[in-house]
């Protein structure tokens, strides 16, 4: 009797620990090999056959097709340079320059990876259409209400994700995160 109770306890603990950790790992986004520059993070191996089992499980679960490394690199940003989560009710400025690439795109998604509807139907900028300063740098106003220049509307959602994709770029698995690559700064300027 005592043995059966013990076994039962053991199995219940095992189920909780096992399934609980799996759920936490897949929903909180545990992934190895993160390549971080500023507020931006890419998982280079997710675009190759060497993708780790956690990322593999996450992709199978959310239905995403990761950008292949021979195509480009996707950098995700979920918070600004001070670590504050990106909030669609605030005015956020993305400014600076990107690493070398033939083309790049910057796109705003909700946290599920869906585009957000807005009156001017703008969800992204490409490197070709963005308005630049004289020195080649750019400044994007990510804000709920209309702004002059490069305005990327947030639709007022509580949380959003910015994706900067570099296409045909020399940055790769051998690149070290560091001074030689510069990514745009993300700053929250005002919140209601």
């Amino acid at each position, binding site marked *: 009797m005592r043995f059966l109770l013990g076994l039962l306890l053991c199995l219940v603990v*095992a189920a909780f620990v096992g399934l609980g950790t799996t759920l936490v790992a897949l929903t909180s986004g545990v992934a190895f090999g993160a390549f971080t520059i500023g507020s931006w993070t890419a998982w280079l191996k997710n675009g190759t056959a060497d993708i780790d089992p956690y990322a593999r499980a996450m992709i199978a679960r959310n239905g995403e097709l990761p950008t292949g490394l021979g195509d480009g690199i996707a950098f995700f940003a979920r918070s600004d340079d001070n670590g504050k989560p990106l909030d669609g009710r605030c005015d956020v400025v993305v400014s600076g320059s990107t690493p070398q690439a033939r083309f790049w795109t910057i796109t705003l998604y909700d946290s599920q990876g*869906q585009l957000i509807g807005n009156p001017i139907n703008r969800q992204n900028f490409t490197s070709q259409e963005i308005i630049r300063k004289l020195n080649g740098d750019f400044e994007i106003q990510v804000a709920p209400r209309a702004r002059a220049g490069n305005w990327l509307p947030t639709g007022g959602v509580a949380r959003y994700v910015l994706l900067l994709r570099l296409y045909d770029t020399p940055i790769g698995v051998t690149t070290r995160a560091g001074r030689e690559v510069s990514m745009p700064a993300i700053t929250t300027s005002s919140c209601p």
Partner: protein
Amino acid sequence: MMMRLILWLAGGILLGGVIHLVTVLLLPRTATQDAYSRLAPITPVNSVVPIPAPTAEKSIMPFMDPAFATAVCRYDLTRGPLKLAAPVSPAYTSVSFYTRNGVAYYAINDRAAGRRVIELDLMTTAQRAQLPEDEDVTAADRLIVESPTGVGLIVIRALAPEPGSMGAARATLAQAKCQPQQ
């Protein structure tokens, strides 16, 4: 008594670790909402079909890049290798290969291919091993891609650098072909 309880708890935690690893490894095989399953109803096997661009109302997969026109060839190599030919658009074109479970095992862009048309032969490792010797020699100017799985996805994407060039990007993809080799 206390000692025995601790032993049972420790055993439970160890077993939990095993369950964690097994579920993480098995999850991709049991997923019903992965990219392949989402695309299967709208993509016939071994032919290139355009995929609707993502909008705020509907996107087939999460995190699709709206600056691109996209076409998919859902392939099945069980009857033999496939030939893929994708003309390149003026701006930027790429071809990415995914396994049944969404692993991006190979990707190439127009510049790396170095031609006006990206031409590739897709086959399994076993099919490649069966290639006659002399054919392997001429393979120098043939790009052969080995698929780790018998079925999977080829995603052909053409960039529209401005919204106005989306039509041209789509038209380029409409000429892409994937078909069994003769």
